[in-house]
């Protein structure tokens, strides 16, 4: 009996790539609101910049941001594992304990944020200790992701590290290959987090000012570090600059930067919805660049075109229908929850 072969991709590559980029952008947007928002709230708390009710109100939003980050993080990792299983699993196994500890770190951060939220609701005060604990868990998670995914793009380093140590206690020693990348990501999170704070705190001058400062400062710093990161990769880019330039990466970079600047401009004009859209599209552009860079760095050891494509259209259609339904239901539920309903006040809880 000939058994089915599992080395295939069950949809055209462009479709899987598009879904990966879209869902990763959604995840990064939520993650940036969470990480950036937590860091900004912590900073504002230490400097006593925000009135207590504003700080408490913001703290109550953070668990929802965590839920969004976690749930939106599943799909991009799934699509990543679908296309790059050899690279991703290998890197996670070599750093197994650090990778697994991410679960504990996120649970710790999540519970810390919930506790802060309940405490803020009860007492009107935000616990800086709990916020710091949450920030620590989130920063650890982000650092592990940067470290592991950078390692996944270096198959030779990965093999050499594994040959020396198979215990799963290997931390990617090539800090140069991911330190700046991680910092760029954290600064990007501060940028988006700043926007998030300024939108939620638009009626609070103190919050709006902090959010604006994080948005502008974070964006400038993220751009500078991002540039340094690209320069630090010159050994790769020297070798692969040609292929890299032949992709739409450079035009996309220019457009993404322009969109980021447009977001700043629109934000200063209080056109927040449009500014948010520009920021989101800018993040999407950066995610695309990240995708191209991965392909460039894996050149020589991995070829996307080598995948056998064997579409499973009926399961895909089921997913598509459910995905659209998901969006519809999410929007409908949000409208139901946030719509102003004067009669709600008269139909308080516990009423039959």
């Amino acid at each position: 009996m000939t058994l089915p072969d599992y080395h295939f991709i069950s949809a055209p590559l462009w479709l899987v790539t598009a879904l990966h980029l879209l869902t990763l952008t959604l995840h990064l947007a939520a993650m940036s609101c969470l990480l950036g928002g937590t860091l900004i709230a912590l900073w504002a708390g230490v400097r006593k910049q925000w009135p207590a009710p504003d700080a408490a109100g913001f703290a109550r939003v953070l668990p929802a941001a965590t839920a969004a980050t976690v749930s939106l993080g599943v799909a991009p990792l799934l699509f990543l594992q679908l296309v790059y299983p050899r690279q991703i699993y290998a890197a996670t196994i070599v750093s197994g304990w650090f990778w697994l500890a991410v679960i504990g770190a996120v649970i710790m951060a999540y519970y810390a944020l919930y506790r802060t939220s309940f405490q803020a609701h009860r007492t009107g005060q935000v616990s800086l200790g709990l916020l710091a604990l949450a920030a620590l868990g989130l920063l650890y998670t982000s650092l592990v992701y940067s470290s592991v995914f950078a390692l996944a793009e270096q198959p030779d380093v990965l093999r050499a590290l594994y040959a020396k140590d198979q215990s799963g206690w290997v931390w990617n020693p090539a800090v140069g290959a991911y330190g700046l990348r991680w910092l760029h990501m954290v600064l990007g999170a501060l940028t988006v987090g700043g926007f998030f704070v300024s939108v939620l705190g638009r009626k609070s001058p103190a919050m709006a000012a902090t959010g604006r400062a994080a948005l502008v400062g974070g964006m400038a710093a993220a751009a500078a570090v991002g540039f340094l990161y690209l320069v630090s990769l010159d050994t790769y880019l020297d070798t692969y600059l040609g292929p890299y330039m032949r992709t739409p990466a450079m035009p996309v970079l220019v457009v993404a930067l322009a969109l980021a600047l447009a977001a700043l401009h629109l934000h200063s004009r209080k056109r927040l919805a449009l500014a948010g859209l520009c920021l989101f599209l800018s993040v999407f552009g950066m995610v695309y660049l990240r995708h191209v860079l991965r392909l460039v760095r894996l050149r020589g050891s991995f070829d996307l075109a080598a995948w056998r494509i064997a579409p499973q259209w009926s399961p895909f259609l089921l997913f598509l229908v459910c995905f659209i339904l998901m969006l519809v239901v999410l929007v409908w539920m949000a409208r139901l929850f946030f719509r102003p309903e004067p009669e709600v006040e008269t139909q308080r809880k516990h009423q039959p």
Partner: protein
Amino acid sequence: MHYPFWDQPIGYGVLMAVIAVFHVFVSHFAIGGGLYLVVNEQLARRAGDTERLAFLEQLSKFFAMVTLVAGALTGVGIWFVIGLLAPAATEALIHNYVWGWATEWTFFVVEIAAAMLYFYGWKRLTAKAHLTLGWIYFGAAWLSLVVINGILTFMLTPGRWLVTGDFWQGFFNPTYWPSLVLRTGVCVMLAGLYALLVASRLEAGDFKARTVRLAAGWAVVGLAVIALAQAWYWKAIPAAVTARALETMPTPVRAIVLSLWLAAALGAVGMALVILAPRRFGTAAALAFMALGMAWFGAFEWSRESLRKPYILTGYMYGNGAEVAETANYRRDGFLPQITFRTGDDGADLFRHACRSCHTLDGYKALRPALAGADRAYILALIQGAHLLRGNMPPFLGTPREAGLIADHLYQRTDHRTLAAIYPLDGLALGRRAYDLRCGKCHAVGTASDKAKSLAGQSAEDLSGMLDMAASLGEGMPAYTGDAAERKALVAYLQTLSQGGKP
């Protein structure tokens, strides 16, 4: 073979079980608890029962804390762990079922969002809107089970998929429906158990009595569904699978089956008591029922995993990641050319990829004590006849040279002294130890390959002669290579085997 091996000291089975059992216990509650909340809210609102609504709000906080954080994150944790422990199987599952998983993700997102809005909506929303969110939550949560159940059951009973490779034939496999009904019953039972825990902390009174009784009723209904569905589930598993498991690993399977029925019976009796004496129901009793429920569920999941042996994907991939379809290639070229990540120590690499996913040297299913006193030739014979040993082990598919490398690797790490020197034993006790080492790995007493009856009445000379020609007695039988003292003790023990190893 294409992945590095995570050589951590905890057994793979243990690590997986710790995370998986905790997750399934929470995730099934996340479904049943949602149904419990919304059904009871609807009834309470209809009856104008404000006391019950206050209790449900309290329960929903506990529910949100447990399911949104621990439930969701340990679910991701399982995904992380299977990628670390069984990357090839995870890859195979993701390539075949990516759209199943992606569909499940859409339900997961709705479930999480609805749970948060439901929890925060008690004071904010109208009764109708709040109930609507509750039903959306339950619907999404249950649908996520509907999807993931297809992938879970596929691992044990892939059915026609093995021939056609068709997504739907693998998804709606022979155990899909019984498993779905069974797991739905588990959800309902766990909703009752968790509600009992919260209710046990209420002040004694009529309301507590009503609440405990209601929650107990849910648990009993869930148990009843489980009992029926479990029988259906067992029958739906191909007879060849259950027969093979019962034949070669009777102890764990029988123990599991027994524990399942015991747990169900204990649960039912306990719930009956709760229904009769709800006012006295305290937190300790609630925790005991929770522990019972968790033990039962753990046992069920363990039985499912055990039944699948020697495969991780039945008929398709062995527990150590070796692919059935590659058998001829392995036998011809060996494992080593397939192992992408090498350390320079071929014996260690082969041991990791062929054995280590189930066995550790000193911890879970430890080999060092199991092989203490064994010589290299005997270890080599065990490796080459691995599929004949108890426990439904996968066959060793590599070349003879590779089997020798693993034997060297293990022999260097085991105690080379004689059994009598390792253990301060003599007489029948030493014979029993020799039997465990030399014979019991296949011919365990009480199993299908128990030879006690055929040895009854044989003389010491006959038995010693039989040991001399052991290698010719049947397929995979190793030659007897123990020393004279061990042989004498073993023969004496064999003479007593039909009386249970007693003189």
